[in-house]
């Protein structure tokens, strides 16, 4: 009854003080702020109105809280929206972590970025206008063993680029074929070893993922050689790649621990790969090969019983198919192809089963006849004094091999 009277008073034409006093007298205190607000608006006193509006809002929230205690006042839609917002916010935080923590690690401290840098190389403007380029492709044996700067100095009009990439095989390399062809090299020298065609070498999944942004899988030739796993990795969109990159968080943390140990305990500094990844001349020698020979090499080789990574099958496999496709495409685009059987430590070669070697040589002989490319065999050209380990030459070996190979390549290409 009292409330009804007060409500009526609210809309009466009485002077403001009267309804307020009546309400107070009747004990209906909750109407007082509303009354004051109403009258202050009527009186055009906006400062006062603002004050009462604030009071009214507080009263409203209080009423809501009293009538509906907190959890019950929450709607399903509100929960769902909050969940979506939480997921979006955490994904933003995650992206930020990847951007400021993982990407710099990949760029500076991971050799994986070499694969990306090759695409950058192909698309660079200076690469496109240079018409006398020779590319050297292969795995770490090419990357570490071929001094492109030295070959450049052998009085030739050609410019040589070492595009070797650790653990690279024809199947991995073929992904960058289109980019390489578009950058118009004069010739490509491809270094191959037993591991290139075995199909059992360590598979650089992460490199495939990181180059996914550059690779176009609509190319039917590419699709034909890659199976589901490769395709999935190469076909990642930027969102998938962002999610994939979480697997590098622990490696990035390892790098930071390494740096901390280096600063505090004087331990070996983690390898810095930024320069290595964008170095396409490969002059000098890497710090890890600074000694002439790996002191543990013979011991490790003698303990080795499994040579399956050198097992080149007699029949065909994805690596062989990728290799043939690569040769075909390069030749079709009038890019000269030279194949180099990379130098291997004789101590290793004598342990590899004869059948593997026979299959390797037979495959290359047949391919060279079919596609008419030159093959330079360096497998057993140098004795073990030129090797740092099984596949990598030391300082002396690198110099002599680069000179030998450079002269032969220049002579062949002309």
């Amino acid at each position, binding site marked *: 009854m009292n409330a009804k009277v007060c409500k009526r008073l609210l809309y009466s034409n009485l002077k403001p003080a009267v309804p307020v006093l009546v309400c107070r007298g009747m004990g209906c205190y909750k109407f007082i702020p509303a009354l004051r607000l109403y009258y202050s608006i009527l009186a055009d006193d906006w400062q006062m109105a603002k004050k009462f509006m604030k009071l009214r809002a507080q009263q409203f929230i209080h009423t809501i809280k009293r009538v509906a205690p*907190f*959890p*019950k006042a*929450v*709607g*399903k839609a*509100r*929960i*769902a929206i*909050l*969940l979506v*917002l*939480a*997921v979006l*916010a*955490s*994904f933003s*935080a*995650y992206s930020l*972590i990847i951007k400021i923590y993982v990407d710099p690690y990949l760029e500076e401290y991971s050799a994986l970025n070499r694969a990306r840098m090759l695409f950058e190389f192909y698309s660079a403007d200076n690469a496109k206008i240079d018409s006398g380029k020779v590319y050297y492709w292969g795995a770490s044996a090419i990357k570490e063993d071929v001094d492109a700067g030295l070959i450049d100095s052998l009085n030739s009009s050609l410019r040589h680029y070492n595009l070797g990439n650790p653990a690279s095989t024809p199947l991995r390399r073929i992904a960058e074929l289109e980019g390489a062809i578009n950058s118009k090299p004069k010739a490509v020298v491809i270094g191959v070893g037993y591991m290139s065609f075995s199909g059992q070498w360590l598979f650089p999944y992460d490199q495939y993922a990181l180059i996914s942004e550059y690779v176009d899988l609509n190319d039917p030739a590419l699709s034909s050689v890659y199976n589901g796993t490769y395709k999935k990795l190469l076909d990642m969109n930027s969102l998938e790649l962002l*999610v*994939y990159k*979480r*697997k590098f*968080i*622990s490696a990035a943390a390892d790098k930071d621990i390494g740096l901390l140990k280096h600063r505090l305990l004087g331990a070996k500094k983690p390898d810095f790969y930024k320069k290595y990844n964008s170095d396409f001349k490969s002059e000098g020698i890497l710090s890890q090969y600074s000694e002439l020979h790996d002191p543990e090499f013979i011991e490790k080789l003698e303990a080795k019983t499994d040579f399956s990574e050198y097992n080149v099958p007699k029949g065909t496999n994805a690596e062989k198919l990728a290799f043939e496709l690569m040769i075909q495409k390069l030749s079709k685009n009038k890019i000269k192809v030279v194949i180099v059987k990379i130098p291997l430590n004789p101590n290793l070669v004598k342990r590899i089963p004869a059948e593997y070697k026979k299959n390797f040589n037979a495959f290359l002989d047949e391919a060279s006849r079919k596609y008419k490319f030159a093959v330079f065999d360096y497998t057993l050209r140098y004795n073990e004094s030129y090797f740092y380990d099984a596949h990598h030459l030391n300082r002396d070996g690198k110099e002599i091999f680069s000179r030998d190979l450079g002269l032969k390549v220049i002579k062949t290409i002309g």
Partner: protein
Amino acid sequence: MLFNSLQFAILMVVVFLSIELFKNNALRLSILLLSSYVFYYTDSGPLFVLLLFSSLLGFYTGKKVHESAALGKRKFFLILSIVGNLGVLALFKYTNFAIRVANDIGSLFGASPSLSALSIVLPVGLSFFTFQTMSYTFDIYRKKLTPSDSFLKYALFISFFPQLVAGPIVRASEFLPQLEKKVLMLSENLKQGLTYIGWGLAKKVVFADNLAPLVDSVFSDPIGLSSFHIIIGTLAFGVQIYCDFSGYSDIAIGAAGIFGFKLPKNFNKPYFACNPSDFWGRWHITLSTWLKDYLYIPLGGNRKGRSRTFINMMITMFLGGLWHGAAWNFVIWGIYHGVLLVAYKWIAGRFSLIKGRIASIIVTQYFIFLGWLMFRVGNFEHLLFAIRKFLFLDFFSAGISGIMPFFLENKFSILLIAVFFYLHALSYKMPDIIERINSARLSYWFAYAMLISLLLFLFTPSASKAFIYFQF
């Protein structure tokens, strides 16, 4: 369909929206049943008929047991249900194990192995839904339950997708009454359900899945490893299996909770158990109470003297071990726990061995973790080697040079183990932490949801593993 997959999230959203759309309760229940069948079909394909068979058999025999006045007839239908369900279980889960055992016995007597294994695929969740069906008929037989008159409700009880493939094992007396009420999806249910799902996902993805590589690397071939490797591997497996299974249970409880259903708790801080009996009151609670109510007590429980009690315990734990899988290591694990229970009962009655709660927890957990070795290592030679290393410590046989590479290679996993035990200890002081999060202000709940999703984004391994208990 894994709980930590996009498909499951999509299924949950579709079911949720469908139920919101239709107000009719029978329709809502039908949607839940249909989605449960879709969920099961995606994993089991045509073996989905086994679920239908078990449901129909349980429904029919339950009705018959209730309707029959004569004891003989009641018994007949009870046995029909048990034989039907155990028959399916035996055929699909234990046939090849029986063949292996027969061949082994044959070779002991000089016969060459003549029986070849059958190509049988074990349907997921078989052990769980057959046990639920049997408990339903049992309860009706014991006149503790009246059968459901609606096949829809009964079928939903058997196949409700959140708990279908790995429990918790739900009793009809707990679940059927919930189906009698209207399916209500309240906002507080949604919030609570999501809180549980997030908690379970974090356990599974952050802890269990990230510890799996360490466990696999240690136990794939433990020969030659030191005690340090074995103990770290065992601790990692203890954490992995707890986080995997209790994570699954939390997700199941949360998913069911969203639709307004309450599932029983399956874990209660098992690594705080201070004796073997206490452990089984905290670990896989719904299975241990099932075994107690439908096996141990019908066998006579502790009512027939001391030695009979011990025998009943051993039988129960032996079958409990066998329930987990058709392999010798599960049998050994079950018997081992039977021995622990008997030894505890026998010793506790005579001596007061350990004073102080912390000491008794440590001693109990030492034996529990020793048991995990038996659970994890299937190869007998490997198992003996691992047990020897666990019991007779030789931390330094590998030397620091042998331990350090292992430690450095697995430092993240070892850190996870430490974080787990810290959180586990914290949860002892803060019971019902999920309820606390759930009843916290919405801004805190938002922060919780954000933290969990950030953890999932950061720590989901590239290869997600199936839940361990899916294989049982």
